[in-house]
């Protein structure tokens, strides 16, 4: 009896080990291997575009690209993942630089071990230089927020609330700061820590708007906060009435822009942030060619005009 149970346990573990082993051997079969490490928790849908971007780039370039992230979004865990990625000796690492203090050490270690690194999405050109990465591909967040603030100011906005679903990401909070500076007002209490859960976000937005009825505008920082905010506005009847701008695109955001609830969306074109680093790294490894500067993937304002292609690929490649 005991032996049967032990045998069963052994058989079960083999049943798991075999597919895993096959998966990992197929991973080695392709040419160059790159790893993209993001700071996003599993629940952040925006990163799906990134995954599609690296899959497409991997297919076109004939390389293997793996995607990794800390499941809860804990940046200390992300540092461990970068260390792990380094230890597995890939040809290159593409990573975000969401917190310089935490991540600069592990990234520097990778660079000094001869692994090429490209910073994407979060970080600044200065930080990129400091950690020794090849380049930065992304949207300068403060500038993007500032541009949006100027635009809103032109539309007569005097107060706003910034719905921040990634309060831990200091770089993303820069968007709110830039927006406030663009409007020429103080950020003060206008940044709302909404959390990641859709119904929580919706209720917090509702609560904020009923507590602060004089709010002119809403700024959301991505689909995670924009989608529930759309629902909230439909519920309290402010949809189309209140000035609504958002960062990033997604299915619902595009629909919102089309129906006039959302005035504009700022597309930082995550596809380029994922696709270009893979292409750049591969060409650098194969032929030694490297573009001479950082690449700005955004900001691009998406408004009601010219939505067709955006609509077609929203959530997939946009």
């Amino acid at each position, binding site marked *: 009896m*005991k032996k049967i*149970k032990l045998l069963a*346990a052994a058989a*079960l*573990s083999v049943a*798991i*080990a075999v597919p*895993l*082993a096959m*998966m*990992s051997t197929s*991973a*080695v079969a392709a040419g160059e291997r790159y790893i993209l490490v993001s700071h996003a928790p*599993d629940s952040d849908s925006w990163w799906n575009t990134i995954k599609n971007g690296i899959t497409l780039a991997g297919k076109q370039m004939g390389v293997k690209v*793996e*995607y*990794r*992230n800390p*499941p*809860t*979004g*804990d*940046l*200390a865990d992300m*540092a*461990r*993942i970068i*260390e*792990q*990625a*380094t*230890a*597995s*000796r890939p040809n290159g690492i593409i990573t975000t630089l969401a*917190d*310089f*203090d*935490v991540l600069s*050490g592990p990234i*520097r*270690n990778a*660079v*000094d*071990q*001869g692994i090429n690194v490209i910073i994407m999405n979060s970080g600044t050109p200065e930080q990129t230089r400091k950690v*020794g990465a090849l380049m930065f591909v992304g949207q300068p967040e403060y500038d993007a927020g500032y541009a949006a603030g100027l635009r809103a100011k032109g539309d007569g906005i005097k107060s706003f609330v910034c719905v921040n679903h990634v*309060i*831990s990401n*200091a770089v993303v*909070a820069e968007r709110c700061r830039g927006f406030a500076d663009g409007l020429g007002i103080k*950020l003060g209490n206008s940044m709302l*820590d909404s959390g990641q859960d859709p119904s929580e976000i919706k209720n917090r937005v509702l609560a904020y708007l009923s507590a602060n009825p004089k709010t002119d505008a809403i700024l959301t920082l991505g689909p995670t906060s924009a989608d529930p905010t759309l629902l909230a506005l439909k519920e309290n009847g402010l949809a189309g009435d209140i000035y609504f701008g958002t960062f990033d695109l997604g299915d619902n955001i595009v629909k919102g822009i089309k129906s006039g609830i959302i005035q504009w969306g700022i597309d930082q074109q995550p596809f380029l942030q994922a696709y270009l680093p893979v292409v750049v790294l591969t060409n650098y490894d194969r032929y030694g060619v490297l573009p001479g500067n950082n690449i700005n993937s955004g900001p691009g304002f998406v408004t009601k005009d010219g939505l067709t292609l955006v609509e077609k690929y929203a959530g997939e490649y946009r």
Partner: protein
Amino acid sequence: MTQTAEAAEAEAAEPEQPPVDERVKERSKFHQALIRPELGGIAGTILVFFFFFLTARDSGMFSPSGVLNWSIVSAQFIIIAVGACLLMIAGEFDLSVGSMIGFAGMSIALLSVSLGWPVWLAIIVTFILCMGVGALNGWLVIKTGLPSFIVTLAFLFILRGLTIFAAITTTNKTIVGGIRDVAEGDWLAPIFGGKIFTGFFQWMGDAGWIETFERGTRKGQPVVEGIPMLIVWALVLVIFGHWLLTKTKFGNWIFASGGDARSADYVGVPVNRVKILMFMFTAFCACVFATAQVMEFGSAGADRGLLKEFEAIISVVIGGALLTGGYGSVIGAALGAIIFGVVQQGLFFAGVESSLFRVFLGVILLLAVILNTYIRRMITGEK
């Protein structure tokens, strides 16, 4: 001739038997040596290493930097698992461990960077604060008679909220950096964030036995500089916890308080004191985790330690402790933490598709617990 020999043999086969008590079941020495809560953990650990040796051997998982990677992650789990283990054996839970990690880290950062206190003072004050919150947790559980599950769940929210509030109101940011600069030359900080045996690793690097950096300012230095204090803390806590639990009177009190608090009370065990002290010890462990993390990374974030309470509890349960209290082992919890850490990092090494990562993690952890439970039942004979 042959008859006498046979008679002698028969005589030898029947020596004088000691009186046998029929109530005592006979157990072989081997069997006796096996009856320990950590046996399942030992088997699981061997299985997990065997498994990753098969699937991820060539991925760098067993290179020095790879080993250091999963060792650090395991050591982190061990630190919080030891506290959670002793508390669970004493019959209580602490769900505020994760929030406590964020709280402690932010406390050190705000006191030292924003208020300009010396780092050693910030660390000591934070330890006192955390153990105070731990004591408050325990006191509330004892006084109200509510399940510790509920009381500490409340503190999960309270501490996390306070952490974000304190960070936002004092610095306008949720991540407070710059601790590395203020910790420069501090006497207490290296005890949490330093590395030992650096000379030995440099020597191995010079001899070409371990990898060294290929380029940059640290060219020629070994990739693995030394053993981080985090791992030392994990070992010290395991040894202390194991000693406390198995070699002291207090250890018996812990088992008794968790096994049956009322009976323990009747025979004179100070149950309330034991439980409150265990809550404080859990808080202490969380604070060690947070301090080591802050000193290593040089910054504190309001969202650090998310879900760590469950990771601690999972490690303890994999290690063979019972959720109901009164049974468990610190060594087992440490092995559980190693299994968890190795599986988590090992899956990355094995190149598992990221969206399936949690599925594999869940399945392997479930298998570890099932295997563990079976082995325990086989050995102890419990049904």
